[in-house]
């Protein structure tokens, strides 16, 4: 037992397959006009259609088709000229019709790819993940298991069903098998999901919030002996709800499979559920006996056949690809790799770019958002975009500092005030009285008073002991309540005492 990861990759080659389900952020559901807003009271967003009532019929949401085509285009897919919905027939109480309307053998997008990069000890490595298909389907309702052990399905006395989620548009993005990732399989899986998430966000088609389930990943993993041709038996891990979990789940499954194979046991083809706490998976439904879903074309819907004009109209709206955009901004702003990574991690790229577009210096803009503003966000346990400060506010503050109207210290107080809801930078400056004292005669008067108060210190400076200047500068700053430019005070003081000021 207890193989190390190194043991596994020394002997086996992992083969990945990733299926990502994305809830689209349309206003209404896939086949009816019910709202898709997350977190509503149970069964308040349901109607005869999404409850599967006798007689009700589906009608496709046009925006869902357009979002799916956009996703396909962004993933370098072909958009099929003729696609259809089918019925996937199986019984489950959270599925009101006991069939899911889903695209089967005629999906809307096929044959694409997504390139991902991972940072390794051997430098940046690039992998191409090939996309088999992108297809549309509908989500199921949610069950709440009552009685027995804490909300788990097993041992529950009964279940309560809420169909608000039933019929929310889903897009499923399925990769071809991904061989050749070797020891990097877990990182490639994570990088793929991360990159996909960024693309989906840039397209504006989904909230892509893994923790809310609007982006869900199933990771298929199998192992084969290095050099072997045939694929091993795969397991399908569901419930992987964060990027970190994707990596952990793949790594964990690789080790679990290797342990079984080393003992001469076989890997069972099954669904497994990822458990966030332990990082392990537990066995779910066996897929040894293939389910017979009895797919057939959905007779209540007609084919989706996007023409070239429709596709090209959509293609024209595609945003810049996230990787290319990141590279462009990094070079335009001259950002070192590490800091670029920090900015991406903090999800600050959009907001910094918006600030720069309003005229702010890129380094300054980044400094504010990743420095003081991130610090406050951390303190409050929110993200920078949740705070009440906008790119416009930050751009104004940067400009005021550049003009010498604010010192950095004053600017921090302005930022604090804006976040506290005191208004625009101008009104915070006004109400808190934060204007820089730039009247030089007033400053000189303050300097004279400081020298008069501390004659010994002044004498030391005259004798060339420059570090002593700090005490006098401090006194001046105190007298001006911090609203003087400390650098200018130093300059005036030293010149006054006959010392070089630079």
């Amino acid at each position, binding site marked *: 037992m207890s193989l190390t990861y190194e043991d596994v990759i020394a002997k086996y080659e992992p083969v990945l397959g990733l299926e990502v389900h994305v809830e689209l952020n349309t206003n209404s559901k896939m086949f009816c006009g019910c709202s898709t807003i997350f977190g509503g009271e149970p069964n308040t967003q349901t109607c005869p259609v999404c409850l599967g*009532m*006798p007689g009700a019929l589906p009608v496709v949401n046009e925006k869902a088709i357009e979002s799916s085509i956009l996703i396909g285009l962004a993933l370098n897919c072909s958009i099929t000229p003729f696609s259809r919905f089918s019925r996937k*027939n199986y019984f489950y109480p959270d599925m*009101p019709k006991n069939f899911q309307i889903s695209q089967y053998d005629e999906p809307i997008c096929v044959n694409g790819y997504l390139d991902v990069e991972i940072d390794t000890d051997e430098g940046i490595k690039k992998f191409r993940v090939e996309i088999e298909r992108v297809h549309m389907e509908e989500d199921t309702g949610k069950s709440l298991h009552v009685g027995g052990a804490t909300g788990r399905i097993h041992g529950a006395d009964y279940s309560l069903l809420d169909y608000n989620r039933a019929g929310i548009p889903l897009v499923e993005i399925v990769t071809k098998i991904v061989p050749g990732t070797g020891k990097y399989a877990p990182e490639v899986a994570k990088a793929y999901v991360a990159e996909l998430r960024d693309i989906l966000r840039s397209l504006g088609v989904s909230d892509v919030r893994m923790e809310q389930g609007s982006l869900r990943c199933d990771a298929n993993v199998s192992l084969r002996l290095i050099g072997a041709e045939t694929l091993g038996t795969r397991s399908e891990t569901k419930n992987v709800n964060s990027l970190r979990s994707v990596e952990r789940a793949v790594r964990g499954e690789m080790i679990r499979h290797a342990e079984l194979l080393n003992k001469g046991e076989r890997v069972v083809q099954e669904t497994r559920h990822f458990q966030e706490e332990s990082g392990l998976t537990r066995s779910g439904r066996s897929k040894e006996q293939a389910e017979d879903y009895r797919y057939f074309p959905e007779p209540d819907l007609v084919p989706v056949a996007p023409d070239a004009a429709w596709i090209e109209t959509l293609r024209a709206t595609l945003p810049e690809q996230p990787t290319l955009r990141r590279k462009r901004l990094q070079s335009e702003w001259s950002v070192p790799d590490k800091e670029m990574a920090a900015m991406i991690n903090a999800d600050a790229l959009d907001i910094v770019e918006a600030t720069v577009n309003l005229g702010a210096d890129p380094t300054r803009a980044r400094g504010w958002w990743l420095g003081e503003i991130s610090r406050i966000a951390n303190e409050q346990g929110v993200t920078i975009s949740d705070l009440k400060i906008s790119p416009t506010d930050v751009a104004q503050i940067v400009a005021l500092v550049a003009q010498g109207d604010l010192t950095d210290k004053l600017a921090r107080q302005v930022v604090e005030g804006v976040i506290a809801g005191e208004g625009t930078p101008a009104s915070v400056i006004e109400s808190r009285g934060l204007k820089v004292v730039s009247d030089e005669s007033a400053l000189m008067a303050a300097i004279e008073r400081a020298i008069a108060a501390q004659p010994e210190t002044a004498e030391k400076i005259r004798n060339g002991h420059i570090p002593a200047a700090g005490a006098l500068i401090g006194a001046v700053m105190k007298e001006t309540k911090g609203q003087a430019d400390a650098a200018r005070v130093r300059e005036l003081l030293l010149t006054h005492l006959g010392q070089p000021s630079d």
Partner: protein
Amino acid sequence: MITRAAHEMSAAMASGEISSVELTQAHLDRITSVDAQVHAFLYVDTEGALAQAQSVDDARARGESVGPLAGVPLALKDVMAQQGIPTTAGSKILEGWRPPYDATVVSKLKAAGVVILGKTNMDEFAMGSSTENSAYGPTHNPWDLTRIPGGSGGGSSASLAAFEAPLAIGTDTGGSIRQPAAVTGTVGVKPTYGGVSRYGLIAFSSSLDQAGPCARTVLDTALLHEVIAGHDVHDATSIDAPVPQVVRAAREGSVKGMKIGVVKELNGDGYQAGVRSRFEESLELLAKAGAEIVEVSCPNFEYALAAYYLIAPSECSSNLARFDAMRYGIRVGDEDGASAESVMNLTREVGFGREVKRRIILGTYALSSGYFDAYYGSAQKVRTLIMQDFNKAFTSADVLVSPTCPTTAFKIGEKANDPLAMYLNDIATIPVNMAGIGGMSLPCGLAPEDGLPVGFQVMAPAMQDQRMYSVGAALEASLLSQWGAPLLSQIPALVGAK
């Protein structure tokens, strides 16, 4: 008054001869008097009907203009969802369900001021040709109470023949409007697929189902057709085009210069002698009225029945999956420790009748992996061939005609244990559904050997529904002048009738 045509009742209301409340009450009284024998209705909405009638009378009293069928009573097949009114589709599994919404057809009827008397009996989920498959007992043919009224819409057709309602709504998947019309001496139309919204029609076979109008005259059928037809955004298979001018065609009733194609394969062997003779006489009348009669051949029609009994069960196996005891309908076996799965299994065993279960299992088989291509796939190809046959035939004829059914009404119980013999009833009506075109059945006399009504079928190309009404109205007029009175004047009086 209750034996008159709907358009005559409408005229009587317009002239003040009778109010809608009086007319509705007369029909409610008739139902009370004869329905114990006919069993056309599963539910009578006395209160709702009288309230609707009152509101139409009020509107008239205020001088508002009302539609041509405002205030006229109607019988609604129980396969249509009507808000707050028990809707069972003839199945035990839906016992007690009151839909929280109206079918589009129901909304249109209400908006037109039509008075819905109640819900009519039918074969469970519209699967059958005799109404014997209703979980609530069979309906009896008013011509002969020991015989079937056709199916699946036997309740609707029987209500017309029994003068319980002058108008009815049916649905037709393989002949469920036309065959009951034929065997009860009434008129029924299956419009072009997509001509009438299916929203709220409890689905049997989605690619074949079509709701349509039923009445005692061609003009009444046309008037009802125009009320219920039209594009519906809630039905993706609904046609977004103007409704064919069926009322105008029914009023004109002209076949001058029209080419009428007799389908060679839908006549002859297997068709009752009296059915054939009445059909032939009708062709002569049409020729006399100015039509040219030609013969057409549709060689693939002989495969239509087989294809139908694969496509319809396949779609129904999926459509009926939703009846699982979780969200509506009856629930069986929900005892301590029972699982959702065991409750589903038990409820579906108890809640569905034999024919429904037979078709669900047949459809499940036809769709299963390994058999899909041989069965469902092949049936879809036959569908293509049937459409090609129709397309070709319509190049040499404006409409096609045939007897509606091979026989007149058979005895209740006669074919109950022989599904294949039962299925043969639909041999002449099924091709129309497979191709999605329009079909009408109207009475063309009584078979001499048994004195029971014979139906004459008219088929028109997609979206040319008005042609059926032209032919139907012309034939109806010729027959009427020959008979001197409507065919239904010959129906035996029901015991207890006033």
